[in-house]
């Protein structure tokens, strides 16, 4: 009984401390946004390239700090909808951007700065001998892909439709990272991921490109958000992404070119 009381007290203390800490943290963030800080919300797949771009931006704009927040595009859109203080949003699909546009949270037209296509990831050595998209439908092949509800799954569905090949996955994951994870651990014989994922997981998985992927190209739009207090810097960041140097960084990560 005493134990339970102690535990409750401890829990309460932790709760209070956590609340305080959370409040303080938020205050700091708010204070910084009004200063020389640019907050960029970007899709998780952009992590490597946007980290590099942010460093590049800070070098060109001394005194400005770029704060990056990476998550699933849907999560980020929800956070922005709930009033998260962001200046730039870079999404991995057009749908989440369109939703923000509808609620009037986007300033101006979003620009498509990159594209991404699907590729097949297989464990090192390609134990199931996957050579083509059609091979994925072979019986006994343990295929993992994204669920239709998320962009990478929607793209796979489009290709299925175009090719008439019916895939029979053993699992439909919520994110492309989960798909990659199951290929890396060799639980799956093959996974449908993005070309960029092959780059980031190089060495842990092998890639199999397939021409049908061109039928479902994912566009990455970026836009300045309407409640930014830093629109000059925000616009400058978008310009950097679209510049030849910016495009080179994205291309190195495996992204296709955006539409100017």
């Amino acid at each position: 009984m005493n134990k339970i009381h102690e535990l409750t007290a401890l829990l309460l203390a932790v709760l209070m401390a956590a609340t305080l800490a959370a409040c303080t943290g938020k205050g700091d963030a708010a204070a910084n946004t009004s200063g020389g800080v640019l907050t960029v919300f970007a899709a998780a797949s952009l992590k490597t390239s946007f980290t590099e771009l942010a460093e590049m931006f800070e070098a060109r704009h001394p005194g400005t700090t770029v704060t990056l927040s990476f998550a699933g595009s849907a999560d980020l859109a929800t956070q922005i909808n709930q009033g998260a203080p962001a200046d730039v949003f870079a999404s991995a699909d057009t749908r989440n951007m369109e939703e923000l546009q509808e609620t009037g949270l986007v300033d101006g037209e979003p620009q498509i700065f990159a594209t991404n296509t699907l590729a097949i990831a297989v464990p090192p050595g390609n134990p199931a001998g996957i050579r083509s998209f059609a091979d994925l439908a072979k019986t006994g092949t343990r295929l993992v892909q994204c669920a239709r509800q998320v962009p990478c799954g929607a793209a796979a569905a489009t290709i299925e439709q175009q090719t008439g090949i019916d895939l029979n996955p053993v699992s439909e994951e919520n994110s492309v990272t989960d798909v990659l994870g199951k290929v890396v651990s060799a639980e799956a014989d093959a996974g449908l991921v993005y070309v960029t994922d092959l780059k980031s997981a190089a060495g842990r998985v092998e890639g199999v490109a397939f021409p049908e992927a061109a039928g479902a190209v994912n566009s990455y739009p970026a836009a300045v958000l309407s409640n930014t207090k830093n629109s000059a810097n925000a616009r400058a960041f978008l310009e950097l992404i679209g510049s030849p140097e910016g495009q080179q960084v994205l291309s190195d990560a495996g992204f296709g070119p955006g539409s100017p």
Partner: protein
Amino acid sequence: MSHQVYSGVPRWIYAVAVLAALVVVLPLIAMVARVNWANFLPLVTSESAVSALGLSLRTSAASTVLCILLGVPLALVLARGRFPLQGLLRSLVLLPLVLPPVVGGIALLYTFGRQGLLGSTLEVLGLQIAFSTTAVVLAQTFVALPFLVVSLEGALRTGGERYEAVAATLGASPGRVFRRVTLPLVLPGLASGAVLSFARSLGEFGATLTFAGSLQGVTRTLPLEIYLQRETDPDAAVALSLVLVAVAVAVVALAYRRPGGRAGRASQRTTAAAAPVRNAA
């Protein structure tokens, strides 16, 4: 009545208690407030939702049975046995209670996965655990077993060993003592442990996602379905969450209902009789 009896609880405690209750209840209220009632029925009866709920109920029932079959002997050994490293074993068994489920999933993956400790052996035997409903049941059993063991071990300790000793001197073999005395005596503890295990299995998410994958009708349980629906259809996610809350409330109510009537008094007497445990010396 409650105003007539001195409770000894300072007033400010009530204020904090209300705060604590709000921490738990307010988010639930907020969620209920967001339910799209007009579409509620179609949302929770969609093919994928019904399939997920059915899978959740089936796998949770299976893992609860597994928990009982494995947990009863384990609790008995922990409560009554005397062997070296008993304390260590107890701590290890209870670990999933505090372990992040995703860690459990990773651990299971490296045990039953293709490249895992047992996985390659199982593969040779033609058994594939990963991506199967079996994997879901395993993940749920992994996280739910401690609940059963903890509540049963508590019941066993409260009851003491004196009834068993008397039964033995009356000529009952250990097997008969177990069936006819020990099990009936701890039945309430076993029942609440089983209900808690079922509830924990029903809510299992992280280990399943990591270890079993997510495929409608095979491995996509209700929590995974909610997680997926959230990507595109928040209304469906909220509606399904409400279903899960309703099931959880029913389960918890079942586990903690006030014991009434004869059974209640009998168990009180049991505890009262067990309290003044005399030194066997």
